[in-house]
């Protein structure tokens, strides 16, 4: 399989105006991905499927990912003048990235037996801008998986032949896989509640008995040796 840089240059030539970035994967798996912009995604996808050297005819997996607003700290060495001497100092910059939803596609080629190629698309934001073009007209395997992403994450895929909920019932309004989803209070008795289960269970405790002066008697009495259990 060609390297990501080669694929990126070819795709940018084929789909004129496409903006493709390489998202480097820092881990040991060496599966970096291409970030494709929404406007040209279908053209890039068709190029990847049809080009003779690439022939990515098999879309194996379509995933949705939810990224909340986050702050990324970057430390870089910067030349600064300290006490009249030019030194290299660590400068930490904080970059605020606003949240978005993402759709990740894993592509393989059955003809050339190579892969995987990972491509990603990001939405503008997590609210009304959660729209992406559907790649179902290019790879039919995305049909049910994009419906699932719509159901669980709320990304609206434009051009999908039948976009409706697939795993939850139709009257459901939330998008459960989002990181800020709160489950309904489906109270279940726990013999030893703990952590956030304890917090939620506190709503179901019996009310505390009213103070009627009896607690004063208990505090004043000194415990005798026989009274310990």
């Amino acid at each position, binding site marked *: 399989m060609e390297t990501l840089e080669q694929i990126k240059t070819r795709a940018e030539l084929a789909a004129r105006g496409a903006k493709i970035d390489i998202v480097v994967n820092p881990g040991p798996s060496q599966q970096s991905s291409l970030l494709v912009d929404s406007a040209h995604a279908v053209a890039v996808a068709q190029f990847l499927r049809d080009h003779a050297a690439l022939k990515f005819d098999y879309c194996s997996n379509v995933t949705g990912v939810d990224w909340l607003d986050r702050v990324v700290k970057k430390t870089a060495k910067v030349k600064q003048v300290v006490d009249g001497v030019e030194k290299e100092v660590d400068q930490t910059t904080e970059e605020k990235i606003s949240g978005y939803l993402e759709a990740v596609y894993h592509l393989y080629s059955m003809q050339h037996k190579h892969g995987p190629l990972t491509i990603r698309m990001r939405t503008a934001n997590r609210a009304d801008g959660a729209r992406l073009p559907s790649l179902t007209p290019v790879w039919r395997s995305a049909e049910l998986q994009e419906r699932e992403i719509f159901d669980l994450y709320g990304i609206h895929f434009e051009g999908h032949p039948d976009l409706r909920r697939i795993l939850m019932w139709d*009257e459901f309004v939330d998008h459960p896989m989002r990181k800020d989803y709160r489950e309904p209070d489906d109270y279940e008795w726990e013999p030893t509640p703990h952590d956030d289960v304890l917090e939620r269970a506190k709503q179901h405790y019996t009310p505390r008995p009213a103070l009627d002066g009896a607690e004063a008697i208990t505090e004043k009495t000194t415990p005798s040796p026989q009274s310990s259990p």
Partner: protein
Amino acid sequence: MTEGQIDEGLRSELQRQGIWVTSMQELYNWGRKNSIWPLQFGLACCAIEMIATAASRYDIARFGGEIFRPSPRQADLMIVAGTITKKMAPQIVRLYNQMPDPKYVISMGACAISGGPFKQGYNVLKGIDRYIPVDVYIPGCPPRPEALLHAFMELQRKIDDQKLTGANKAQHLEPGQPSEFPVPAFGEHDLEPPANPDVFQAPKLERV
């Protein structure tokens, strides 16, 4: 001699003479407990152990449960085997309502008892006893086929103990007892109602 019971010594003496004495209750319960027809209804992994119980090694046919009926109108026993999701719960209550009296429910596996390993779930119902009454619970994930056979025998013992007359008579013979339960509806965030208060009360935690 207790009410309705025949002295065992007298009974065996008569049997040696070729006379078989019984009571209506014993005959009725004997017939029912040895021919329980389960509903062919498996949800998830526990269903495979249920099928393995019905297969040749752990034969459930010797207990009378050979014929798994596909239709609820012909079944006595619903073995709820597997995780119950909120999407599936109304169908289960409907199936229970369609079964004719007397009917029994075995809750097989941790998921059917209380949600099991999937308890933290937006789509998982924490136990089928929130909507319908359950007779026998089998813990396990999945319970072995022997555990299901043990539960079957427990159910047979329970049926044997049911009385036909008197204050403690069996539920299906009481005219006022409901045999159908309301079916929950799909709400916007959860099922409505989340539990049936006539069937299930969550115990309150004591504040100390």
